[in-house]
């Protein structure tokens, strides 16, 4: 499932809200696994976005002749 319109910051914020809820224990037992899975999915998406951004930065730096690397 991809949600390209959701920003990194939005995903990160949702992930943090989920973690806080779980840590408070403020969650239905049936919801626990669902929330956890949702958290893992958000994490994967964020990590992917970060690594894409990093790749772009390095690529651009290389293309511009990166004396400062």
């Amino acid at each position: 499932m991809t949600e390209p319109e959701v920003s990194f910051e939005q995903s990160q914020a949702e992930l943090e809200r989920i973690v806080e809820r779980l840590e408070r224990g403020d969650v239905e037992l049936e919801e626990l696994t669902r929330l956890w899975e949702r958290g893992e999915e958000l994490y994967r998406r964020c990590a992917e976005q970060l690594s894409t951004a990093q790749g772009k930065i390095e690529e651009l730096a290389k293309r511009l002749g990166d004396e400062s690397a």
Partner: protein
Amino acid sequence: MKVEATEVDGRKVFSVRAFNQGIAVWLERLPTVWVEGEVTELRRQERWASVFFTLKDPESGACLSAQMPRGQFDGLRLELVDGERVHVYGRPELYEQRGDFHLRVLTIERYGLGAHLASLERLKAKLAAEGLFAAERKRPLPRIPRLIGLVTGNDAAAKRDVLTAITTRFPPARIIVAETFVQGPRAAPSIVTAIADLCERGADVVIVARGGGSFEDLLPFSDERLVRAVAACPVPVVSAVGHEQDTPLMDLAADVRASTPSVAGRLVVPDLDELQGGLERARTSLRRSARRIVEQRSERLAATHERLGRAPLLALERRGSRLEATHGRLKTLSPRSTLDRGYAIVRAGDSLVRELPPSGTALGIEVAAGSFGARTE
């Protein structure tokens, strides 16, 4: 003194010498007077006994030869130059040998400087009252000008100084030069026109430059028309007139005052080397920042992910301990715990005994360890 004429064929005839003598004598009877004019053609040489100059009427151009003993002239320490307006005190005199008439000068006073200064002060006060010199009117110079307009005389020095200063600091600068009169009555209007012309051609900063000169030379730069034009100029104006000590009124109306033409040149452009250095530093820190942002996000994400991994178990544990606590509370509510504390439950038949039973009633008694029977007395 008596001038003798000779009788020739029945007419009285004077010799040239006698005639000149007669005129000279007659002229000597005229009073000593003050004459006002401009000094021109001033000639002074160490081996001459007198200093010679011509007094000129600035309006009509009428001329009057004048001479003064050199010692007296030097004693006045006026340092006169051509074009200065003076009051001269003297009397007419004839050079008999040549029949030349001149003014024998007894003293000279510079005229006009005081008058000029006073009128300049009045103009300065008037323009200051209008706010033309106010600090809040001053505009900053463009950081990198697109097109620099330079107004200057066609004499090399000031122009060369400005151009050299600009191109040394910032070789790619674009400059247009407007050559104008920089002294005399035509200077102010021609500079006003040049400024407007340069603005029209797209200059985004204008320099008005002129090397040093006498007080009179610099007077056009205090001309009201020019001062107003500088204040009203749509782009910033840098004034670079004369030397440090000269302050024509244009300086006060300009956005920036440069002490010399060279300084003006350095002020309007940035140092290209410095600029490139700064750009390079900005580029480096841009990359560094971009990398740092990704790094920080990664670290935060990793930390959150770690918490996420622990969270479900933590939630279950919390839930488990809450269950235990509830169970504990439940247990305190059961009668067993009361029996544990040494209380007993007494029954008569099936019902609990709450009132005094009749004698001989069979009772069932339950304690923590078990039950036994009893009978009332």
